[in-house]
């Protein structure tokens, strides 16, 4: 080629070996973003899409109009579930590394998203999660042993061996089935919310995608429908900076914040410190009340950082600096809440260690129990005939005959 390409190819500020550089992140001081009334017209909310709602300051105090003024119990609830999410993830990661489950995905560094939002939503609100939303399932009552059994594809697996590890669902907890295809759940949440409005109920829906998945068509279909019908839905974009190896700029984050994606449709966007449990809770509650009162959808961008690899199949040292998480200006959500609680006199290092031990014991006990229902190498085993069930409400003749044939072949006939 004789001419130099004028095409813009987005590139992250730092690659392996470079000094981490988050200078591209626009940060607002804690407490500096105003909290408009929930009936404010979308055109007067546009500034929220480019600011950054923060409550927890660097000095560990809680500041400003978005401070939910949690009491000691609420703070401990938030901390406990975030910590459980992390302990569970660490344990399952080790278990995968030991070859005892096939695959795993952690939410390390992003725990405040699921926990704070689960705390802000009502139990009757429907969640349409992404694959890093395990905290939603935990908070909404799915037992650790059941989540582990799903990862083991054993006889107690809620998915009966049909899904990769972490693709949970919970009908009783109102958490939808995780697909594994990216962003497909977004229009489902909007349709669910439309149905809620049609039925005259006040339940709302919420969904989560990553920064990368905002490029999927379903994201845009969902935003259009949400805006057109003013559906009571919260659309969350968890901007953890990385979609496997592509940084958030490759999904379009260089030009405008993801929170601004809905502005052209009249959907208010709020950019929030995703590692600040108090800010995330407050923003979610605001959006939920708005939706419940007929104010329509809100798009929330949760600015966070994917502290671990994308999955157990990923090696981020190949594409980003090893110490990038440590340099992330919004820190670690658990450490930040812990320090706030200590500063407020509600918590101590000793209490924290004791809680950590308690949660580790809980996770260990759950793992011990889960293995009794079967592992990858030891029974009891699921009946392979179950693979033919639930394809349709009733099994059609062709599947019945294939199931018979499968058994014959298994028996060597």
């Amino acid at each position, binding site marked *: 080629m004789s001419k130099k390409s004028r095409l813009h190819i987005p590139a992250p500020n730092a690659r392996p070996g470079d000094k981490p550089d988050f200078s591209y992140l626009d940060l607002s001081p804690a407490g500096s973003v105003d909290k408009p009334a929930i009936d404010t017209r979308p055109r007067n909310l546009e500034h929220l899409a480019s600011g950054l709602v923060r409550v927890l300051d660097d000095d560990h105090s809680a500041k400003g109009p978005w401070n939910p003024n949690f009491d000691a119990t609420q703070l401990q609830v938030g901390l406990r579930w975030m910590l459980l999410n992390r302990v569970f993830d660490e344990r399952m990661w080790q278990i995968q590394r030991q070859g005892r489950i096939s695959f795993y995905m952690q939410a390390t560094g992003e725990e405040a998203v699921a926990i704070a939002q689960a705390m802000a939503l009502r139990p009757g609100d*429907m969640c*349409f999660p992404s694959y890093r939303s395990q905290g939603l399932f935990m908070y909404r009552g799915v037992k650790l042993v059941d989540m582990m059994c799903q990862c083991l594809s054993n006889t107690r697996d*809620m*998915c*009966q061996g*049909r*899904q990769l590890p972490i*693709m949970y*669902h*919970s*009908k009783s907890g109102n958490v*939808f*089935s995780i*697909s594994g*295809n990216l962003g*497909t759940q*977004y*229009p*489902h*949440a*909007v*349709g*669910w*919310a*439309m*149905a*809620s409005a*049609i*039925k005259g109920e006040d339940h709302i*829906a919420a969904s989560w995608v990553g920064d990368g998945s905002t490029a999927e*068509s*379903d994201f845009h*279909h*969902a935003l*259009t*429908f949400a805006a*057109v*019908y003013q559906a009571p839905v919260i659309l969350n974009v968890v901007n953890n900076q990385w979609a496997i190896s592509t940084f958030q700029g490759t999904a379009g984050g260089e030009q405008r914040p993801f929170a601004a994606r809905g502005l052209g449709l009249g959907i208010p966007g709020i950019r929030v410190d995703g590692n600040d449990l108090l800010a995330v809770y407050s923003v979610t509650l605001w959006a939920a009340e708005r939706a419940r009162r007929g104010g329509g959808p809100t798009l929330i961008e949760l600015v966070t950082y994917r502290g671990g690899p994308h999955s157990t199949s990923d090696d981020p040292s190949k594409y980003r600096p090893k110490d990038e998480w440590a340099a992330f200006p919004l820190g670690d959500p658990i450490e930040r809440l812990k320090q706030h609680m200590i500063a407020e006199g509600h918590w101590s290092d000793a209490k924290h260690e004791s809680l950590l031990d308690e949660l580790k014991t809980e996770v260990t006990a759950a793992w011990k129990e889960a293995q009794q229902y079967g592992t990858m190498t030891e029974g009891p085993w699921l009946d392979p005939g179950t693979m033919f*069930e*639930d*394809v*349709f*409400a009733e099994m*059609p*003749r*062709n599947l019945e005959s294939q199931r018979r044939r499968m058994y014959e072949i298994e028996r060597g006939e």
Partner: protein
Amino acid sequence: MARMNMIEAIRSAHDVMMDKDPSVIVLGEDVGYFGGVFRCTDGLQRKFGEHRVIDAPISEGGIIGAAIGMGVNGLRPIAEIQFADYIYPGFDQIVSELARLRYRSSGEFFSPVTIRTPCGGGIRGGQTHSQSPEAIFTHVTGIKTVMPSNPYDAKGLLISAIESDDPVVFFEPKRIYNGPFDGDPEKPAVSWNSHPKGEVPEGYYTVPMGQAEIAQAGEELTIVTYGTLVHVAIAASKETGVDCEVVDVRTMAPLDVQTLADSVRKTGRCLVAHEATRFGGFGAELVASVQKECFYHLEAPIGRVAGWDTPYPHAFEWQYFPGLKRMSAGIRRVMEAE
């Protein structure tokens, strides 16, 4: 008993089910105030209100995706995709979500969506208004695929589809909306007025999915087909003088192999016909099923009549479309083979 064309029968199915079940709602482009470009939903919004008959943005992926979410929340959505040629933006939602939701959640979640979509050629629609993509959907397990050939079946099958807890892709051969078509474009159009299947009860009834029907009894050759070509097959039987048994498949998935096999065992000869392109078409599945069940009864290789393996051409529609001439040629070929 009332006389209805296919459009009226489909509209009546909506009407009956929306009266019967308040969870049934309609969603699609132009379906509401206007009543649909083919008028299948005409009057429904006036009767049931704009919260149950919803005009949607031009976003097939959004229509199907939102319908799935509505279904999960207890509604029974009928999503209209204006032309089957436009269904592809919603294809991922159908394949990866709608078809597999029950399976992947072990039956905890499902969404009883019916997707209605006009299909097929013979209307001078060119390649964007004439496609027959049924095989793309029959290959996806977890959805039922239906294509009626007359008003009576259209209403009965559509009611079954709406009531089904499984997702259904419901193809409507638009060439026969207003009357049966025998595949000869030179003849004047006929209406459903004098056709026995144009007699349609006004109230509730069902035609079960998964059952083929003998559209014309015969002894010499079985023609297995569906949609518009049912009528072409009957006309070609008359033109060739061959005593053909015409089996209207009606539901492609799940397939009623028994009815096809019983017929071919009786006649010993089989011709499979559809409008869609031949290669990898649903006809291949029909041929394989008949061959497996009837191999020792066959007196000739199974014949196939289908659209040529080209995109649907605008100017050469009648050379492309498997009409009367091509169907008759197909019949003669199977009858002459030994």
